[in-house]
């Protein structure tokens, strides 16, 4: 249902002062998010952004929509709760690599398993920015920090984990290419089911290795490769593991499977929050105990 003739970028004017570092990769992601919401013709009040803690988690404050800015690592459970009781909301979880893959690792795995109709953006800068530069689960091997003086241990491949968990939509974008990223985000939101969009995002303050230039030299778009098929899980697994001289961006894997609201029986129904409960209905249950 549309209430307004046309949604424009003006509708997503930042609601509060921005506290990111100048030059942060998050600015590109913010731009892409807003572009995607406009392309999807979503009015701000139709959107709920749920975030955890970290620099990425501040993004919802810098656009305009409903916000639930919760706990470190916990955006996905909160997003599931909200989406389940109000399926009219477009729910986007904003998360970072520490938030989604570290503190929230368990939720990450099980949310992919459940397949709720939620989009999850993971800003992956391979470092903990908000706590000043410690290693994250995706930090490259050998990267040293004050807390990891011997160098980070081997890095997690979250997209490979996602393929293994049969995540129904997996994409990767790059903060240095916001227009392309906006297209991926819009596609992810349209996907019925859980959509993971990882965004390679340079941290200008604490990650002097994985810079804009470092990524520019490595990223390539999967759809420009011969024989690419996002429905091929084995190929997706190979792409998800590719991390070196070439790093793939684009839709890595996609398939449709039963969504969590279909499983719960709430799909296609009025938002549960609009129902008026009747205490007297409980009377029908008393016979069980008589």
């Amino acid at each position, binding site marked *: 249902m549309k*209430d307004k003739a046309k949604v424009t970028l003006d509708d997503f004017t930042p*609601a*509060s002062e921005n*506290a990111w570092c100048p030059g942060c990769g998050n600015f590109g992601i913010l731009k892409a998010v807003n572009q995607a919401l406009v392309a999807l013709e979503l*009015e*701000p*009040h*139709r959107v*709920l952004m*749920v975030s955890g*803690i970290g620099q990425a988690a*501040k993004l919802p*404050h810098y656009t*305009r*929509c*409903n*916000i*639930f*800015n*919760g*706990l470190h690592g*916990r955006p*996905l*459970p*909160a*997003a*599931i*709760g*909200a*989406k*389940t*009781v*109000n399926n*009219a*909301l477009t729910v986007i979880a904003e998360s970072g690599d520490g938030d989604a893959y570290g503190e929230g690792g*368990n*939720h990450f*795995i*099980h949310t992919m398993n459940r397949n709720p109709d939620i989009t999850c953006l993971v800003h992956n800068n391979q470092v903990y920015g908000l706590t000043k530069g410690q290693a994250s689960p995706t930090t490259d091997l050998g990267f040293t920090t004050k807390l990891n003086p011997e160098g980070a241990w081997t890095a997690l491949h979250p997209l490979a984990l996602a393929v293994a968990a049969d995540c129904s939509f997996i994409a990767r974008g790059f903060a240095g290419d916001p227009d392309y990223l906006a297209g991926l985000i819009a596609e992810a939101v349209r996907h019925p089911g859980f959509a993971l969009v990882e965004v390679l995002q340079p941290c200008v303050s604490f990650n002097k290795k994985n810079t804009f230039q470092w990524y520019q030299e490595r990223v390539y778009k999967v759809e420009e490769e011969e024989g690419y098929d996002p429905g091929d899980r084995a190929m997706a697994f190979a792409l998800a593991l590719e991390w070196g001289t070439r790093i793939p961006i684009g839709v890595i894997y996609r398939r449709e499977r039963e969504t969590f609201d279909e499983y*719960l*029986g*709430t799909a296609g*129904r009025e*938002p*549960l*929050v*609009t*129902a008026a*409960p*009747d*205490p*007297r*209905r*409980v*009377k029908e*249950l*008393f016979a069980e*105990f*008589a």
Partner: protein
Amino acid sequence: MAVDLNILIGGEAGQGVVSVGAVLGRAMVRGGYEVFADQDFESRIRGGHSFARVRVCDRPVDASRETADLVLALNAETVSLHLGEITPGGALIHSAGRNGAVSEGAPNRLDIPVHDIAIDAGGSPKMANTVATAAALGLLEYDFDILAGVLEHQYGRHGSAVVEANVKAARAGYDYARKHCPAGFKMRLKAGRPSGKLLLTGNEAVALGALAAGVGFVAGYPMTPSTPILEYLAGKGRDFSLPVIQAEDEIAAINMAVGAGYAGARAMTATSGGGFSLMTEGLALAGMTETPVVIVLGQRAGPATGLPTRTEQGELLYAIHAGHGEFPRAVLAPGNAQEGFRATVKAFNLAEKFQTPVIVATDHQMADSYYTVAPFDLEAVTLERGEWLCDQDADSQGADYKRYAFTDSGISPRALPGIHRALVSADSDEHSEAGHIIEDAATRRRMVEKRLRKQVGLAGEIAPPLSARVEGADYTLISWGSGNGPAMEASGMLTGRGHRINTLRFTELWPFPAERVRQELEKSGKSIVIESNATGQLARLIRAETGIQADIRVNRYDGRPLSAEYIVAQLEQEAGL
């Protein structure tokens, strides 16, 4: 002569002890009696020793009794463990040929070949428990038709053939017991008119309370003793349009519930101490984001995994203080099924009125025991949804909506995200009225004060303890939650011995009704605080909030429930009563 009959059913885990107890209990309630039935079991699925006790009275009863009039032994170990608990004139029912139990010393013995009878009459050894159940009722000459009706209730879903076979097996067991009734056993129980009352567990009462309160979302991770709440609600999920989610852990469960609460649903989770520990981060989140959420905390004996299937009231002070930082909350502690239903409804109302978490603290004894209750008065259930923006404001305010607007009550009108045009911004960081991150000292101070003002309003909603006063009393027995039933019964026993006794029973504990408690205790005799914990948490709370120190404490912390006998024995030994 007042009826107070206690039947103990013992056996291994997996032998159906609880089912036998439930059938006996239901048969008694249908005959107009009041029943309290509790369970004692180990943390294992097969083997070990477990028992259920069904106490039958002609007046309301909320406590177990430690001596048994009838011991129904499904295995040999039950005979050796419980022989000494049989009252003079009581009886033991067992199957000696089967399990070779040594039963010398029982006042009266009925040795009944339950397996043979089950096979002969019912066609299957599976009906041995039905035979044994019927034998107990046969000894008492209780109305057989009531038992037949209960068996239909119990087995109806398996079809009429199963019901008929069970009724036949029951008839055979009943007749055998009447024919072989030990000469010394004179106890008889006559069924009266049905009272229309229900027999249900504390957990079931809490679950029904949640449904009556319009619970709209449940997430939880299974943990004894609260799992049955989740299971019951999951069973009703489709009928009541209630999503019940088995979360990957308790952290996810509370965060899901908070997300659903933010979106406008009445959300709850149920757990016990260990799970609650994991939830405390989310509890603070609910406090900071001012999100209504109901948490059932089914206490069991801790710390850590403790005695996972046993009872304790060891988390009162934890429930009051859990979560980092300072925020308002309510803690209710229902002591029986009737109170469990009411407390759950009230918890949802308080959570939404004050936009803050509310904890319903039960314990294993309250959660898993069966209580006799009149059908809950659903007409008396009111849903108080708290303060909301009117539709017009919710649409016109848009991005100007202040989720955390400063108000005198501390309560800011809510709006439903996605339903209206108001943008609802909730934040775990300290935030502005509009819900955006702030760091400045002045706003921080005002937000802290705004949130804490809600505690003042909440305090006005908390019921003072129930008080029963006797002129010139020597002692006041003070108890909370599941301790209330045993304390009341202990009061009766002590009165019977010539003491003058007051009682003060808490079912709601936070915000603490300090003024009323001080008034009560200032006109009391010596105070005796009775708790199922080792450190005297209610006694500490009373002293912290009123400055009044308990004179005597009765504590039980062996994982077993409080009983009147235990309380009186402790008072005799420790305090010379």
